[in-house]
């Protein structure tokens, strides 16, 4: 594409370091097929799409082998410490392993910047006792907690119990913007430490703008759900949305930079 044409179409002149993808995955998930998923592929995609930093969790970790998966994440982010960061996955079905995983990720490794809870896969809501130790740790260290919701989660109690931990509920733009919103979307507009990401959604037309109108722009964060989605897919919706540049910058990375204090 001629450079001038590219610039003509570029909707946002993102400042260096401004775009932070807070929802990606490392490894493979065989329910789909994503052949472009090696660490070098991820970094190449980031350069191609203008994403500056990316935080991911291991498929292996969220599917059962928590320790091996967190080790996989540590290995990957070590290869590209300026670009790739990790979530420590906690499995509430094995609460006896929590302390070891927290130590492995936050004391024994580098570039871990938050917790990832997959309440859907693990079959336990966010307020389950199996998460208590990890959430207390997140509260103590002001660590963001990315949550794939279970559906029966008690967000009001959980966010009150751990007020220093920002909770980010994934996939909020699965809501199409005109059907009744899931309760968590309304709650995100009311609860100070409850946030939403837009990762991995069907990308309904106008849904992002309606989400922002509902919750306020400071509550919405960009995430890609890579490698099920090319990085350009979700960041494109932000970049070309019918929103102001300031709103795009907030969603694209400004909000994440405020929450993820360990991103360097």
């Amino acid at each position: 594409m001629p450079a001038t044409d590219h610039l003509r179409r570029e909707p946002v002149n993102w400042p260096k370091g401004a775009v932070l993808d807070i929802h990606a995955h490392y490894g493979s998930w065989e329910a789909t097929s994503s052949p472009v998923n090696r660490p070098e592929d991820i970094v190449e995609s980031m350069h191609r799409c203008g994403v500056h930093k990316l935080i991911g969790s291991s498929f292996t970790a969220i599917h059962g082998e928590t320790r091996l998966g967190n080790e996989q994440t540590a290995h990957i982010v070590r290869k590209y410490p300026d670009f790739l960061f990790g979530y420590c996955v906690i499995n509430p079905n094995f609460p006896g392993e929590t302390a070891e995983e927290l130590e492995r990720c936050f004391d024994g490794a580098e570039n871990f910047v938050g917790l990832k809870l997959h309440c859907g896969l693990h079959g336990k809501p966010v307020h389950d006792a199996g998460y208590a130790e990890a959430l207390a740790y997140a509260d103590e260290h002001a660590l963001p907690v990315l949550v794939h919701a279970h559906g029966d989660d008690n967000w009001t109690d959980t966010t009150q119990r751990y007020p220093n931990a920002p909770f980010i509920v994934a996939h909020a733009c699965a809501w199409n913007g005109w059907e009744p919103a899931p309760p968590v979307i309304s709650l995100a507009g009311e609860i100070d430490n409850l946030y939403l990401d837009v990762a991995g959604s069907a990308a309904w037309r106008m849904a992002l703008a309606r989400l922002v109108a509902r919750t306020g722009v400071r509550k919405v964060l960009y995430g890609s759900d890579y490698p099920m989605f090319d990085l350009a897919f979700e960041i494109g919706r932000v970049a070309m949305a019918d929103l102001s540049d300031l709103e795009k910058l907030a969603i694209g990375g400004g909000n994440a930079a405020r929450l993820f204090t360990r991103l360097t």
Partner: protein
Amino acid sequence: MPIFDLNVTLGRTASPAGASFETPEQLLAEMQRLRIDEALVCHAIALEADVEYGNALLIEQLRGHPNLYPCWVMAPPAFGDLPDAGAWVERARAAGVRAVRLAPKHSHYSLAAWCTGPLLGPLERARLPVLLDFGEHHWSQSPIPWNDVLDICRRFPELDVVVLGVSVGDTRNSHAALREAANLHLESHAFALPGLYGLMAREGWLERILFGTGMPRCAGENRVFLLLHSGLKQAGRPPRAGATPTGCFTSTPCRQRTTFAGNP
């Protein structure tokens, strides 16, 4: 690089409210905002309710809009409820229709050749491409009846078949199907596989991935941004290459280029 959108619907839909392009001017305004140059358009009433009335509305509403190309919805006639297939296809040609869309899932008929064959034969002879619409589905699922798709590709080898809505959950099936049938094409609006266009190029299949947005239900922003940041070079390509669905990335003339957009 002009962009041709293969998958746009005009007209009010029953639901969801607020997401329709009620007039060609509304559609054109969104296309202009997203810098989409041309589109293949079908009518919501033809898709959702009354095929013949919706098709007639489409022709009426697109008059005077040379960058919007009509796509009629058709279905296999039963007990004479719809025109004789041969005569219907002739009428479509006379009306300037560039492609035909079948929605077997919505309209409750089988895609299998025993049901659709009497319609597909005249379409093949008229060189009218067929778009297969299986509705929106979650990206991790695979609801497309690939055996039937491949069967009609083989029975009607001169018919260009375009499957709408292929997603990452269908990567393995779609890859194998493309290998099996040279007249099979995929539309892109739900297919955000990382590096998709590069992977298709590697297989020599770039002319078989056709750009679509799925508007107005789906957002155009993601899809346009993904296309623009696909990493493919445009250098040396003819200036009108992107004006047609299969011409977006190839300088090699192909049947769809002349069929869809009327290029010489």
